[in-house]
């Protein structure tokens, strides 16, 4: 812990605890991993005064307002109030970027803005800063239904994501579908296998003792089936997320969630 010389008036935080609008179970049988965890972990997610993920959200808010790069601009300089202008954004990502001629996930978008608009160095994958900003922006969509864009340019990428989801991989030769479609609700080493809807990323995972991105979770699964994980930022991850967000269409965003 670095030294902090002075006391300062802190954020006297949220007055009331947030009950997140987690509908969580749709009528077609899709269910959020929220329902598969213990009441204590559910309570943790619902309490903004106790969920460690909120620490990153606060950091993200500070970063949103901090000037950066050679352009000496903050996110707020262009986007003003995140609570207004970032509403619904995370719910419709990944989205197609004409500049890059491919879809970007939210983190990719943040880094693209950093590079081109702020003329600053992009944040490293899984860095505190990138996670904090993603959590802060993601939280502005909390409670809103996941709304994948109806953009025909995304179709081939989504199809590749779906193919990867169904492809057997690794020494254990499992596909995502083998666990998260065929065996969701069953147990794997004492933990219930969720359906794998990315409703709450980035999230605080007790296993990690840290906030982490969906890509970190993907890598964990790939290692789990003894496959070589793709590098952070790989197109495969964005395509897979694109497919999964489609699969989770209509389910409420829970960012920043908690999971065991």
């Amino acid at each position, binding site marked *: 812990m670095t030294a902090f010389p002075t006391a300062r008036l802190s954020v*006297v*935080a949220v007055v009331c605890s947030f009950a997140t609008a987690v509908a969580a179970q749709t009528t077609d049988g899709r269910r959020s991993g929220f329902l598969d965890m213990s009441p204590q972990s559910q309570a943790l997610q619902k309490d903004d005064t106790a969920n460690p993920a909120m620490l990153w959200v606060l950091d993200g808010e500070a970063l949103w307002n901090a000037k950066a790069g050679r352009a000496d601009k903050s996110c707020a300089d262009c986007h003003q109030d995140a609570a207004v202008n970032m509403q619904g954004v995370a719910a419709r990502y990944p989205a197609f970027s004409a500049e890059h001629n491919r879809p970007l996930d939210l983190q990719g978008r943040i880094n693209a803005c950093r590079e081109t608009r702020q003329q600053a160095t992009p944040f490293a994958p899984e860095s505190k800063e990138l996670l904090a900003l993603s959590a802060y922006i993601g939280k502005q969509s909390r409670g809103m239904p996941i709304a994948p864009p109806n953009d025909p340019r995304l179709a081939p990428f989504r199809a590749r994501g779906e193919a990867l989801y169904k492809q057997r991989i690794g020494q254990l030769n499992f596909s995502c579908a083998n666990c998260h479609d065929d065996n969701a609700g069953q147990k794997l080493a004492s933990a219930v296998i969720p359906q794998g809807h990315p409703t709450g990323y980035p999230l605080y995972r007790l296993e990690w003792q840290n906030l982490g991105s969906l890509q970190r979770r993907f890598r964990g699964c790939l290692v789990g089936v003894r496959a070589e994980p793709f590098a952070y930022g790989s197109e495969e991850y964005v395509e897979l997320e694109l497919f999964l967000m489609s699969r989770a269409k209509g389910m409420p965003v829970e960012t920043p969630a908690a999971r065991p």
Partner: protein
Amino acid sequence: MARALINVPPKAKRGEVIEIKTLISHPMETGYRPKGDGSFYPRDIIHKFVCTLNGEEIFRADLYPAIAANPFISFTTVARESGLLMFSWIDDRGEAQMESAKLVVE
């Protein structure tokens, strides 16, 4: 600077028992986490947490590696007087982080 989140009721009635919740960002490195090479990441935890109201201690905790990362501590106090709540987290290096919050008692 570690991010801290403090929750104090904005107003309290005199004599009311209020709950204060605190959360601070810190890995609470236990000293028992193995590195790849067989050695361990060295211990680095917050070992003491103190809360005062108008300079007088109202709560104190001695923490050990068994306290989870990003320590959450919640306790109560009787609302007697308005004033300044000061929170201190002290780590193994003896460095302290301090935060404050106002307590309004009517």
